[in-house]
């Protein structure tokens, strides 16, 4: 909703005395010369909503010429807009010119011609050249569609101060002849949302010089001019005005209430006011006219800026507001390793293009990325700020293969829908060939080789699968199985056995006859039993077995080797052992029998052999009882 705001007029009176002195000193110096009477328009093509400035200039003539009569101009309605004089010194020569300005309002579209305009001066009748003007159908927004413009909207009353109350050309009150106003297209907006500020200058008179525009204080906003300056006619409070309009886009930077300060317009207008009063002034008013500088100011505006909603805010949102699209492209589709490729990410749309933030780009580690540069392309048509911002990044692939760049995402707040939007580009692919084998540049003074880059980790990822591996039913770990714990006892067990064996061996060494001594009788009896079958088969062999039993027994008991054992050591041993003499006699007798049988084996008989076996058994029992197990 648009709003009208009042205006103030401050005037700065012209230095009339100065003008007077200049005029008097120069008037006599004017030389008569060829007079020219020309017509000039500010443009040849206008629309129905524009007005045309027609300037009629008399050069080289006298300055006090009367206002020319404008004939009817087909297709236009003419209104006098002012008169100005100009005197110049060039190389000592003086020239003068009087210019009459008229505003022509088109009445119908089409091709029109401004006919020759006559002027009578010094007895001469001059006429201008005809001018062709093309009037197009109106293209500007109709009245009422712009903020603050509607036929029903009345301009504020004139301010009470200074020159605003002076009589101005046309005899109208100051407020009705010219004033300024500002308006915005919205008084409430979100942070970053565009607000269009209109500054309008309404005038029914012409200005003597280009006015000076002083923009308002827009603290709290980023501003963007919206050219071009527009001119059109508008009706306000029943009066037709020529309107000059400046538009500015404002982008709030923070939430809260902000004030757009007053805008000012400094302009010079011609004042034919009779309030100068004195004849002196009246005399020269026709020569120079009377000018005054006025400063028109608009009233401040208050804008309410809302914060961006927290709900639904995407993670990658960086404060951009508007409506945008996103695209991304690589300048090449196939390169070699280390060959640069340019990634261009373009955000285009409507909003504060200059302040667009860089979309979040995730550059894979396979690439080396250089600094991102941005470029702008802004279009300002129909009070909209549109365009694109391109972010260019040079990438260098570090590895070969089919590489890809993930989609680029860009989040923004769309004030039209009141929601956040996220757009993203397509995934980009790049085929990277291995780097060609480089050749080291020849170096003077010795061989050279390329500088090694060193090992550099490009990316971190899991390692590849294993192509071989044993498969088996699940089992507990080896160290948790019962067999493993038993295995742990084997070394100790082995050592224990070894220790026992060693112990026994040592004990045997300490007691040489120990084991054999104790087991001699048992061995003798088992051997006798084994020899018994020979009684029926082979009597000499039986006797030989008994002889061996005899020697083995005595050897074991006496600690002697049975091999080659003779009677003498046996007798000595038995005596040393304390065996009874009767037993020794029996041993000697049995030894003699064995000795005799060795030489007469054919004389052996079964009964004799049985008797010998019994004698041996009895002897063993006797000796064993006498030794009693002592060693």
């Amino acid at each position, binding site marked *: 909703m648009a709003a009208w705001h009042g205006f103030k007029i401050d005037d700065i009176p012209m230095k009339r005395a100065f003008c007077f002195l200049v005029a008097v000193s120069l008037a006599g110096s004017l030389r008569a010369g060829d007079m020219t009477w020309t017509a000039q328009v500010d443009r040849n093509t206008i629309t129905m909503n524009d007005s045309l400035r027609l300037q009629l200039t008399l050069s080289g003539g006298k300055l006090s010429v009367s206002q020319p009569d404008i004939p009817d101009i087909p297709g236009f309605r003419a209104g006098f807009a002012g008169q100005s004089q100009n005197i110049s010194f060039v190389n000592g020569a003086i020239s003068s010119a009087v210019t009459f300005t008229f505003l022509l309002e088109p009445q119908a579209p089409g091709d029109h011609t401004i006919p020759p305009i006559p002027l009578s001066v010094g007895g001469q009748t001059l006429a201008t050249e005809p001018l062709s003007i093309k009037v197009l159908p109106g293209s500007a927004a109709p009245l009422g569609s712009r903020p603050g413009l509607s036929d029903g909207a009345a301009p504020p009353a004139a301010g009470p101060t200074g020159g605003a109350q002076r009589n101005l050309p046309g005899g109208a009150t100051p407020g009705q002849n010219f004033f300024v106003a500002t308006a915005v297209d919205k008084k409430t907006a979100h942070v970053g949302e565009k607000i269009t500020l209109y500054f309008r200058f309404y005038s029914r008179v012409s200005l003597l010089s280009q006015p000076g525009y002083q923009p308002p204080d827009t603290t709290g906003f980023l501003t963007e001019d919206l050219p071009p300056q527009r001119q059109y006619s508008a009706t306000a409070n029943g009066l037709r005005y020529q309107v000059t309009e400046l538009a500015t886009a404002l982008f709030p930077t923070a939430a809260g209430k902000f004030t757009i300060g007053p805008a000012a317009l400094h302009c010079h207008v011609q004042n034919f006011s009779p309030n100068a009063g004195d004849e002196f002034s009246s005399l020269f008013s026709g020569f120079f006219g009377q000018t005054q500088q006025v400063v028109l100011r608009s009233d401040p505006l208050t804008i309410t800026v809302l914060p961006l909603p927290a709900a639904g805010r995407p993670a990658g949102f960086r404060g951009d507001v508007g409506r945008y699209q996103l695209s991304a492209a690589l300048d090449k589709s196939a390169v070699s390793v280390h060959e640069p490729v340019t990634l261009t990410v373009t955000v285009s749309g409507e909003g504060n293009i200059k302040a667009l933030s860089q979309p979040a780009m995730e550059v894979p580690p396979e690439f080396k990325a250089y600094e991102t540069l941005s470029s702008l392309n802004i279009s300002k048509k129909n009070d909209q700020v549109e365009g694109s911002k391109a972010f260019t990044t040079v990438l260098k692939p570090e590895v070969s293969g089919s590489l890809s760049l993930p989609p680029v995402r860009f989040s923004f707040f769309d004030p039209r829908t009141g929601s956040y939007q996220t757009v993203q580009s397509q995934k980009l692919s790049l085929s990277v060939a291995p780097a060609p084998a480089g050749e080291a540049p020849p170096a003077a003074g010795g061989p050279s080789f390329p500088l090694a880059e060193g090992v550099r980790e490009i990316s971190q990822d899991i390692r590849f*699968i294993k192509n071989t591996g044993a*498969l088996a039913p699940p089992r507990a*770990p080896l160290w948790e199985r019962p067999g493993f714990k038993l295995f742990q006892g084997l*070394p100790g067990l*082995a*050592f224990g056995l070894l220790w026992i064996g060693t112990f026994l061996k040592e004990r045997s060494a300490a007691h040489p006859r120990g084991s054999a001594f104790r087991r001699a009788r048992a061995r003798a009896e088992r051997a006798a039993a084994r020899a018994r079958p020979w009684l029926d088969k082979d009597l000499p062999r039986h006797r030989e077995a008994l002889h061996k039993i005899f020697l083995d027994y005595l050897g074991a008991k006496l600690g002697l080797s049975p091999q080659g054992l003779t009677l003498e050591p046996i007798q000595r041993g038995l005596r040393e052992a304390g065996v009874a003499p009767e037993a020794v006699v029996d041993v000697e007798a049995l030894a003699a029998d064995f000795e005799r049988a060795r030489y007469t084996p054919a004389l052996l008989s079964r009964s004799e052999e049985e008797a010998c076996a019994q004698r041996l058994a009895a002897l063993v029992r006797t000796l064993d009882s006498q030794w009693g197990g002592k060693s």
Partner: protein
Amino acid sequence: MVFALIAATAALHAVTASGRYTGGARGADAEDAQKLFQDANKAYASGDFAAARDLYEDIVRQGMDGAALDYNLGNTYFRLGQVGRARLLYERALARSPADDDIRYNRDLLQQRIGETPETADGLGGLAGLLWGLTSVANVAFFALLGIGLFRESETLWWGRWLAGIFLALFLTASLAAGRQAAERRGVILVPRAEARTGPSPEESVGFVIPEGQRVVLLEVINDWIQVGLPGKGLKGWVPRDSVEAVRR
């Protein structure tokens, strides 16, 4: 005899440490499993991770196991974005083959991705096999030196017996501790965000939140809830039983 024992022990523990002891896979089953394993590997290499997962899981359903199988299946789940399953299988593979560098690398990378602090990740439990191997060697060496000492004596042997005895005591202590840790029930969170409550009920308040893939200690089960602990952080809480799975089957 003593040297034979040493050799046998060393060989046994070399097998234990490398994790190549596989037990007895029988004939046709093993061949079928190997064929499936190769097919799954091909699917993985071609980027068809879903197919690879199905084939690896078929092998598991056949009752087969192995460090490489767990590792490959863990990689497949990692590629499919299921970091909880991936972590579980890496832990299983690592328990089976603790010296495997690839398994440990992938497990550590996943651990890093989920923001798990390293001090809570490793303990003596993973070294149980190695420690038991060292214990066995020290055991054999100690008794061998004792045995040699039965036959001959020297100062070197005397010192050797002492050193072997000290090592045996140290390794045995560490092995028993590692064995206790290895026997400790550990699990992995399988849901994206497990809310650990102060009691075994949804009515209890949430004490902390555990990310998917985090390894936890399994403590106590009540109905459909299981108490889990994070020893490194001194936290205990109850989560639904189906949100966590034990590393040891």
